[in-house]
């Protein structure tokens, strides 16, 4: 809690957001049943029961990926962060997209409680969204991808290096979106939706 005092409201918001993303992404991975449920343990976050990965590598992957985004989010460079599930050919099957917008010029103090209330609704909705998702094929993999508004220039910061430019394989047709949850409050707007390949997408 001490950290709060010496940070700007944006910094604080970004930190909460990143924290939230870590939890949310873990929830998605849990939801999709990527790993056996024994690989997760019940935790409490924002007064909600959530899952947390037990395996250190998995936990570290999510944690470092998301916290690596922190400086970019603070600068407002991250447009979307996605959890992509793809098959063995590298073709995405399902993508969970977080669309982010942080109001950089928002000056006043962030109401923690309000923000928490909104973010909590994501986690609640997410936990009941399984019916909206697709059954994944065998041997699929997943990754976390972020879409930047512009490519960051090389920086001395070590954290930044963890994020490398990539190009995921895209669908040929525009995907179908299923919104899960949106929140728009000052200074933070987050939307979560699932992307599925369009019905007319050529099957591999």
């Amino acid at each position, binding site marked *: *809690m001490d*950290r*709060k005092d010496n940070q700007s409201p944006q910094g604080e918001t970004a930190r909460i957001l990143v*924290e939230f993303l870590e939890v949310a992404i873990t929830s998605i991975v849990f939801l999709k049943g990527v790993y056996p449920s024994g690989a997760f*343990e019940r*935790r*409490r*976050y*924002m*007064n909600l029961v959530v899952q947390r990965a037990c395996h250190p590598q998995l936990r570290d992957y999510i944690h470092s990926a998301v916290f690596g985004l922190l400086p970019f989010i603070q600068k407002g460079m991250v447009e979307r962060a996605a959890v992509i599930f793809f098959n063995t050919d590298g073709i995405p099957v399902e993508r969970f997209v977080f*669309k982010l*917008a942080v109001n950089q010029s928002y000056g006043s103090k962030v109401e*923690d409680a309000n923000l*928490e209330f909104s973010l909590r609704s994501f986690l609640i909705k997410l936990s009941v969204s399984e019916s909206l998702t697709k059954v994944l094929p065998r041997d699929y993999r997943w990754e976390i991808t972020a879409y930047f508004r512009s490519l960051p220039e090389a920086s001395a910061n070590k954290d930044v290096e963890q994020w490398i430019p990539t190009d995921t394989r895209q669908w040929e047709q*525009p*995907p*179908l*979106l*299923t*919104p*899960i*949850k*949106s929140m*728009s409050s000052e200074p933070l*707007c987050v*939307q979560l*939706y699932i*992307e*599925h390949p*369009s019905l007319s997408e050529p099957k591999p």
Partner: protein
Amino acid sequence: MSMESTRSANSAKRSFNNNSNSASSNSNSNPSNKKKKTSQKTLGVAWGSNSRSSSRSSFSNSPFSNFGSYMVEKNRKLQNQFEAEASTSSHGGSGSVKPIFDGVSIFVDGFTVPSSQELRGYMLKHGGRFENYFSRRRVTHIICSNLPDSKIKNLRSFSRGLPVVKPTWILESVTANKLLSWVPYQLDQLANNQPKLSAFFTLKRSSVSNGASTHAPCQVNPEAEDSSLKVGTSGDTYFSEVSEPFEHSKQISGESDDLVDENSNASLVEEPANSSGKPCEVAMAVPSNIDTEDESSVKNYLQSNHYQPSALVSSNCINNQNMKGSPSSTVSEPSNQSHSTLGDPNFVENYFKNSRLHFIGTWRNRYRKRFRTLSDGFNCTSSNIKASALKTAIMHVDMDCFFVSVVIRNHLELRDKPVAVCHSDNRKGTAEISSANYPARDYGIKAGMFVRDAKALCPHLVIFPYNFEAYEEVADQFYSVLHKHGNKVQAVSCDEAFLDVTDSEGDPQLLASKIRREIFETTGCTASAGIAGNMLMARLATRTAKPDGQCYIPPERDSLQKDFGLKTGEMLWNYSRGVDNRLVGLIQESKSVGAEVNWGVRFKDVKDAQNFLSNLCKEVSLRLQGCGVEGRTFTLKIKKRRKDAEEPTKYMGHGDCENLSHSTTVPVATDDVEVLQRITKQLFGSFHLDVKEIRGVGLQVSRLESTENSKQGLERNSLKSWLTSASARTEELCKNNYVAKESSNQGCEGEGDETLGQLCGNSVGLSIQMDSNTSNGAACLNEVSVPPPICHLDMGVLKSLPPELFSELNEIYGGKLVDFVAKNKGKTENMNHTLRAYSHEKIEGAMKEGQAALLPSMVFQNEIPVENKAKQHIAKEVPAVSGAESFVPASGLTKTDLIPSSLSQVDTAVLQQLPEELKVDILEHLPAHRMQVFSPNVLLYPTEIPLEALGTKTAENNSGSKDFVLDNNLWFGTPPHWVEKFKVSNCLILNILAEMYYKSGSTGNLSPILQCISSVSIHQLDAFQDGWDEAMYILCELLKQYIKLKIELDIEEIYVCFRLLRRFAMKSEFFIQMYNIVYPYLQALVGENYGGNLHMSLKD
């Protein structure tokens, strides 16, 4: 809440996780844990450290035989962890943290704010305990914010009698740095439930009334409470609430004379005095009384007379019998029934009129009214004398057998004879004696005894009926005396009070005797007094002093002093030592008001019952009004005869009963009879009982609010704001209407008239209405009887008025209009109203298609050119123009000179709204006529009107729309513009939408509105033909604007809306069309923003 804190809390809970964070906390806790153990023997078995390995080993060492033993082990482990942590946190933190929660052990149930982990943290820090699993033995308080209905209904099995408290209790206790009483923090859902005995003891200044009012014991064994019925000798008869339950249980068992009304009572009291030798006088008195009574009570009266003689001196008995012989015979046996609810329509009324306990109960309200100023006065001072507790002197004054002595105060000859007060003196009666004087008590007669038992003990016992008027009079005199001598008087009952005589000069004993003497002189009744250091002792002293004496108990300060200042938990201990720190204060506010009848309740059928209920409601409503309160929670209590119960010993009593109760809470407090009746009937219906089984009915109103407060609140909260907003709205509406009407009127008048040409010279608008509308327009003008304030007048309209009309208006405004127009001339004005008027007209016109051939009425304020050609163009577009054709050329002639000198004078807003062809025409035409003027002006104002931009903008604007105007911001404002617009529309579906906006809570989001609509049957929305296209157009526009507004930030909302719309579309032709129009637009925008299409699954 930061992740940090959550983590550490979590790590505390689970010791065997392996993140570094918790490891460190474990290593921290271990040493102190051990330390704790050495100091605390209670921990018993060595449990080892909290480390993973040891817990493992202990796991294997003690294989759990079953789940139970596992839980025991687990609980113990959790407990150890908690203690370990508690010791670290108290050691680690500043040592000054007070263990305020000492002895408190909480169990958190369900979701709370703050979370259970935080609460746990507080308990850790402040010396409390936290249980992870509920146990009746270890837990002292249950903390929760919300309970499911099932738990509420079955509260006892859920809470096991433990207090259920909101988490704020803990927070505020921490803030206050002391343990606050949990009672005010009781869960709201339970607050209306009856408080428990424990509440009674913990509450420092507890409302005794409340505690006692609930108690079943009062009802179950009336015998035990008998002594307390002897008014003033026991602590339980304090307040009105208390008296209520007593009423239920021991409701005066008047055998037959329960319904004697007051008048007859009065006469009875007089009689004995006169009776000895003049029996005829009695006889005379009776008929005269009858005259004054209404018919129902006549019967009762007669009947009571039938029994009355034996109450009086015996010589009268025969006489009376004789006199009354004939009438009483007619009403002998069967009429007994009339006392029950069966026969008497005024049962409830009479019941309470004759209830002594009702008298005591309602007495408090009378007292408060009478001595309001006095008690208010000392209320202010009562708080600041806490400190001087040592020297306080409290006097308790109590009238000696009040009910008897008041009645016999004028019968000196009866003073030393055994006398009792009771409803009936039937020798064999089961009426209960409510009060007996001391000679009678010597015979062993006690209050609450049945008359037949009393008569058996003392055959010459004289029994008097009640005389409520006299009681009231004496009580008032009594209090006048008390208020004269002490400025701090706390009324306990009508005949009993506490005085704080700390501040009065002189010996309190002298004062007491003075007061007693005065009471005797004014009332003719004796009183006893007790003086001591506190209320409890004073009261006990009075008991010793009785009858007609006084007693002083000198304070044993030394022994008591050390008990002062102890916590509320030890209150009981204190009481047993005779310590009571309460100050003399005001009577507590009533927590509930109600009425209950359980004597003589017998119903034949449902109608009877309903009838009785509505009378009961009347009574309760009167009581509410009498107390000046309104209530929100209504509890209906029913006594239902047990299956195997026999007819009760007590005549018409309730016998062995099951007690049932249902309650309901309404949002707005009320004391209205009709509301009460409605609610009560509902509640009654929910019992599903056979009415013949009902033996008692009670209605209790709680959650009281003062009438004045609620009225004020109402005014402040809703009425005023509603009024202002409404007036604002109507004003605006008026304005709009006014403009519209004016312009239409002007159109009518001007049609084919040269004056219009002149008007146009001024600026303006050509509005052409139908001939058929002429009279209409004029009428409308007349309707606007009150002119709007001058500042609200629209310049455009004013200018366009025909001269006659203008001068007329000018007259109305006393000549100010001319100045106003002059001042405003040349100023640019907001186009909004005129435009709105225009579109309004337009829609109206469209509705009347067939009869209406129309031209757009363009009201231009800013000297806008309306080109001749352009006009003809419009004329061509609209076929069957009747008046227009003749008109257009006429105006056209004058028009050619009206083209402004430059484009900069053209209002761009208007220009944009024009149909494209028309606009192109204007733009083309303008340079042709005034090229030389135009071009330099463009140079002069390049930023103001970039021509290209204008062109493209208009093109865009027109691309999707038809040829009429809509403002682009339907969703602006609260409420959004469209709501107003739709409300005044005469298209059903638009009206419904506007209505739903308010119904859905005015959130400004569309999805709640649509959800509300889905509750209306959709297909009926199709049932309109007029203005289908208009409605379709405007709704599509609304949706499009909404999509635009939300697409970027709230795709979820849009998604929800469209799923609802699609559901509507399945049932409604209209919505299918609309959906099909808007859907492509939606997908295009989604594609633009998200690079995909919304997935409208076909499942639902």
